[in-house]
């Protein structure tokens, strides 16, 4: 078993109402010192086998079509190694 993590964030130029709302909540709680907040998605994908090159390529393909919407989102992918 191994784990691939895909992080999906809105492209920087796209409005992120959620991040904006969270930023507002920080302010209301009196946490200052925050310049901006962006909220995205995190997918933790457990593979039945090893995260070999083919498996990663498959996940990569899914990340760019299924997990993210390339019109408004970017993704990054990494293989998680046991701590």
């Amino acid at each position, binding site marked *: 078993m191994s784990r691939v993590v895909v992080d999906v964030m809105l*492209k920087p130029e*796209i409005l992120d*109402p959620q991040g904006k709302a969270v930023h507002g909540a920080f302010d209301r709680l009196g946490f200052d010192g925050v310049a901006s907040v962006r909220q995205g998605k995190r997918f933790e994908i457990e593979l039945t086998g090893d995260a070999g090159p083919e498996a990663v390529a498959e996940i990569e393909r899914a990340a760019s079509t299924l997990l993210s919407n390339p*019109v*408004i989102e970017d993704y990054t992918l990494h293989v998680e190694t046991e701590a």
Partner: protein
Amino acid sequence: MTTHRELDTTDAAAKTPDQAQPWDELGLKEHEYTRIRDILGRRPTNSELAMYSVMWSEHCSYKSSKAHLRQFGQKAPASDALLVGMGENAGVVDIGNGLAVTFKVESHNHPSYVEPYQGAATGVGGIVRDILAMGARPVAVMDPLRFGPMDADDTKRVLPGVVAGVGGYGNCLGLPNIGGEVVFDPSYAANPLVNALCVGVMRHEDIHLASASGVGNKVVLFGARTGGDGIGGASILASESFDDSKSSKRPSVQVGDPFMEKVLIECCLELFERRLVDGIQDLGAAGISCATSELASNGDGGMHVDLETVLLRDPTLTPGEILMSESQERMMGVVTPENLDAFLAVTGKWDVETAVIGEVTGTGRLVIDWHGETIVDVDPRTVAHEGPVYERPYARPAWQDELQAASPSALPRPSTGAELRDTLLRMLASPNLASKAWVTDQYDRYVLGNTVLAQPEDAGVLRLDESSGLGVAVSTDGNGRYTKLDPYTGAQLALAEAYRNVATTGARPLAVTDCLNFGSPEDPAVMWQFAEAVRGLADACQVLGTPVTGGNVSLYNQTGEAAILPTPVVGVLGVLDDVGRRIPQGFREPGQVIYLLGETGDEFGGSEWAWVTHGHLGGMPPSVDLDAERELAEILVNASRDGLVDAAHDVSDGGVAQALAEAVLRHGTGARVWVPDGVDPFVFLFSESQARAIVSVPRSEEVRFTDMCTARRFGHQRIGVVDDGGVLDVQNVLAVGVDELRNAHESTLPAVFDA
């Protein structure tokens, strides 16, 4: 390569008359560019060029359609209900008790194809702001939709996204969705139609108009901050720097924030109530360019704007981009200096960011400065109202005769009971006639607590006054197949169906809005369809006494040479003095008598039957009889007022069979029906003759009801009885149990979209 340019000011423009400008990339024609130079007496600055190019685009200027749309005004029937007519953000209709209603339908077709969720969401957001800008509280939305074939892969991408977007935005805004359409046809593949309608209500004295008057009054921009949204193509044009890497970062997709819009609505309503705003305009296409030029040209003076005071989400935006940005959830207001503090207190209460960006002047010019240097100095009317008007050539296409000659009369028809039964079930399950609950269950139809009828009823009905029960009914319809066969008739049929749907609930039809979705106006055949449809609609509105109060045109819906079916979507609004008298569509009471109102002919051109069973489209659409529509409406309205009928359902796509099945399914009752003597069962069940409805009449009212029909010489046939047997039994022809009907009707969309 990066070439940063100096800020292009009016001074610079005067000094460099020969500087090349990318007018063609901006979509302008050479003669249009020349005209801009003539108007200004110099070359435009980059910002001015961007502004003219967007405001003179088809989308904003209606340059291809204007010449035809004038008929809506010229032929408008006299109506004392119309308080504000075409030309404003939306028309306003008097419904009595000091209340007025405003409603309008708009398209967001192309953006919804590119990014279905956000495209549809921002489509809803945009039309809601139009209604809000009239001074009204938005109270409901509707969404007429068209998609490619139901099971096409692309439809499986587009439809769920569009539906989630309409719902995601409208639900979060707290506006009930009270109706719409879902239609599938191959011509809409790659060209889905996402139209959105909003209804608003206000007191007469609250009507606001988009004009900036009163020298010294402040111009304020409030709501969301301005970002790079929707500049897209225009960014090349609008940008001061032709830096590829940068302009590619300007998203052509706009992202909506329904929460911001909800707050903006409540904030605006409080501003209206406290009389703190004079003129108001929403920001839609072409953003600040459009809002400033329209407000200024509708006012009595000019306007000065300091563009650097606009609050930005992205500090790297250039002045041209700020002018063009289509960031959502923004409004522009005109406020007197005395009211400014109170105005800011209200926006502050709602946490709505606000900037004073300029003021009304007496110069008659719209002047926009950037850090003290003038980048725009124009007569606002030349931007907003005096764009080009084209008399585009149009011609009846050569193939029209052939299409009309391909009559469906030669198609094999079902004749035995088993064949007719099979046909009924097959049609009930076909994509266009199947239940749309998969879609509508994703929409909140109850919020605001005034929804009297919503899907799957013939029209959405809203209560607007709790004490008197005064309310309105709205329906949208449009049949692209009918319109393709005969655009003049097709547009009239769209109106007739919406009008009939409204009357079926017991409401008196008052006014019309329309969204005209067509292919490219540069194709003379498409332009002919458009011209014919407008002529048909204007003529029919005259006969029915329902003026067009506003609407929208969407052209260039085509892929290559192939245009969509010409699709005029018509919305009709009617009034009910007491919503307690509304007539729902479902049969409820066993023992009531079923009447078919109107005349049934052998009419199958463009019918659902020909399409579903033979994939056939040809012949002539059903004939229109507007006098009969009017008579039928009066009968239904009187029947509602006098409590003569308990259920009514209009007969349209799929004919009497479909109408009966839907009326039985609503409450799972049953009906025993007989085919009138001398009528062919197939024609009785499936013909799409117009000006018809089925009603269920309590026995105690039967005589009064038939007397009324007789007195009006309107065709009425007793065709059956409601029962609770759980079967739709067309005697000696076919019988189907409610469960089987329901399964056929309700499985189709889930089978495709839940897979």
